């Protein structure tokens, strides 16, 4: 069985990331993005990708990366989820990076040091085995495109999928449910350079989306943990009817159920990260399980957090709404839970008919 715990190195990484994020972002800065989508968030990218060098976590040393793996990336994503950090780490340092690594393209070096950001130009709802290459025209809605430098565009040319690298594109912002991960309509411009064709291109895109799905689960776990912890603390201090609301048994039992969900989501996300890291044959199953489960847990955690905070949870001034919007968007991102369960059915030989 794989190691589902966190190593000391991973905990130390967590603590660096948490410290850095604490210095460069907070919920007020995230909330400001809803009124001013152009507010400057470059400090978050700089801190995560530049100062800590995390953009290169997945990239081997020979291409300027750290040569760590998916387990470490998962820890970073847990922390990004905990803070709803406005940073395209998953989009560039995981998804685009994985596509390039899969093709053994040295372009990955320009992403590894955080100097440039890459994006896989597909709708954010795409998942491995379920996406369509563009035949030209805008692709929408794409996450991670605003501020990106390198556009990896799955393109259909004469019936064959090509993965084309563009260095420029028209990027039209889209008002997003989750403004901390803003979406855009992307129309690549310029000639572009073909990185791969046919099966190789398809395999690179599928690998990128699979890695994204596997590791999005850790972002969802971090988010759900924040919701659970914040709500438990609130329940201990909020007094109604002369008692902390956390002493009411119905509240207690719901939080106990939520704890169970979060604990299970954590195990599922760890398993997905570990099997991805080791190239385990069970990785596709682990990813489908983690995405279908963690997506719903994150949404449930945010919804319970809002409800148990009562009226204050419905207000703009409390941070919960940022988590709810991220959780709901994450549920739709990279394949819905039902879609991943359908994929899983094929993997474990449980056909529909």
């Amino acid at each position, binding site marked *: 069985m794989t190691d589902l715990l966190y190593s000391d190195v991973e905990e130390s990484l967590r603590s660096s990331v948490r410290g850095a994020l604490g210095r460069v972002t907070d919920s007020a800065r995230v909330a400001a993005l*809803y*009124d001013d989508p152009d507010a400057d968030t470059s400090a978050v990218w700089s801190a995560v990708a530049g100062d800590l060098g995390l953009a290169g976590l997945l990239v081997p040393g020979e291409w300027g990366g750290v040569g760590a793996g998916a387990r470490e990336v998962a820890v970073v994503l847990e922390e990004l989820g905990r803070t709803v950090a406005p940073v395209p780490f998953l989009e560039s340092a995981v998804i685009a990076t994985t596509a390039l690594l899969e093709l053994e393209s040295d372009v990955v070096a320009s992403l590894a040091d955080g100097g440039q950001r890459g994006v896989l130009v597909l*709708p*954010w*709802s795409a998942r491995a085995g379920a996406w369509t290459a563009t035949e030209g025209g805008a692709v*929408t*809605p794409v996450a991670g495109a605003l501020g990106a430098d390198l556009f990896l565009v799955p393109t259909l040319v004469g019936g064959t999928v090509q993965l084309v690298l563009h260095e420029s594109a028209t990027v039209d912002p*889209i*008002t*997003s*449910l*989750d*403004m901390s991960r803003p*979406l855009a309509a992307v129309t690549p411009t310029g000639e572009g350079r073909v990185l791969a064709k046919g099966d190789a291109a398809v395999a690179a895109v599928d690998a990128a989306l699979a890695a994204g799905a596997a590791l999005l689960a850790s972002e969802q776990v971090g988010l759900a943990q924040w919701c659970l912890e914040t709500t438990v603390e609130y329940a201990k201090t909020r*007094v*109604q*009817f*002369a*008692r902390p609301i956390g002493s*009411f048994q*119905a*509240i207690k039992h719901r939080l106990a159920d939520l704890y169970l969900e979060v604990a299970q989501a954590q195990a599922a996300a760890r398993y997905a990260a570990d099997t991805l890291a080791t190239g385990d044959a069970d990785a596709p199953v682990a990813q489908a399980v983690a995405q279908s489960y963690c997506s719903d847990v994150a*949404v449930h955690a945010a*919804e319970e957090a*809002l*409800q148990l905070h*009562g*009226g*204050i*949870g*419905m*207000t*703009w*001034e409390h941070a*919960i*709404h940022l988590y*709810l*919007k991220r959780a*709901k*968007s994450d*549920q*739709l*991102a990279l394949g*819905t*839970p*039902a*879609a991943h*369960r*359908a994929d899983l059915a094929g993997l474990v030989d449980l056909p*529909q008919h």
Partner: protein
Amino acid sequence: MTDVRAEVAALLARFDLETVDPVEFLGARFDAGLAWVHFPVGRGGLDRPRDEQQVVEQLLAEAGAPAPDLGRNSIGIGMAAPTLIAFGTPEQQDRYLRPLFTCEEIWCQLFSEPGAGSDLAGVATKAVLDGDTWIVNGQKVWTSGAQNAQRAILVARTDPTVVKHAGLSYFVVDMADPGVDVRPLRQITGEAEFNEVFLNDVRVPDADRVGAVGAGWRVATTTLNNERVAIGSGAEREAGQIGIVTERWRNDPSVRSSAEHDRLMSWWVETEVTRLAGERLRQQLAVGQPGPESSAMKLAFAQQAQQISGFALELDPDAGLQYDDWTMVRTVSASFLGRGPGFRYLRAKGNSIEGGTSEIMRNVVSERVLGLPADHRPDKGVPFNEVPR
């Protein structure tokens, strides 16, 4: 004996509905006793049975007569008016009812507080008598329409040395008082549908107290009982959030998936049985068996609105990832369905909080419908100012 049909006919005969000024017409309607036929003569009514009001409303609607703006003045017409009739002095009734009905004066409600959410009687806003004027200080929240209101109904603590329910009094407040500070309260949808209202040395004449000093809880309960919980979302099948989803499913095969189909049908069945149960409850109420059962309907309505609006986003992920507009606007009345799918999802989260949380609804059902024992209440019998907070 008065025949309300004849009275309506007589009223209508006096006006050209094409050109009439709404305020003038509503004033005349009030004076004719057709505002609330069950109210006393001279106070907007005719001392008739309550159910005749339905006849009046129907005849006037058929004729296309101007109606009071319930969107803007639901608090005034739905809640303040019946409370004033039950507890107000003759002077209060004479002064307030007519302009309230004509919507020349819009009302809002100053009950909820940050510290008194589900614990409605835990109001901390203080009113201290100074001569014949009450000086009010405190903070209220979730006040819809406060920015447009001329009057407010207020519950404040006039005696902190007795148990919480016993120390409250009920007032009519002039919103033009310089001590009233209304600030928009933005919600997670981006809109500010409600306000916070800060009360700083607001002066309320004792003549504007409704009911006895210390009787505020009883008066407020009358008000809240008139905050009729809409049972379900109406009598039509596929009303509300489910209707939006089914329409999409029927018209757009691209959102259909066999994995989601049974879930869709389960929600269809859930909303249909809630509709039927709501209809059954209405039939029971009509034959005189009212009760706290409507709390259970509110519970079902909130669950369905929230779950189905979330499900709708999953059916069309690329649309669900987007939002129509985050611009902060102040709205006058609640819109649950009027905007995009993301708005509907977020706004529905309030359905299980506003008007009593789902947790409180479950308490009500378990104690008042099923007769289960109350939970432990450490503040029972303890003076308000000795309760730990």
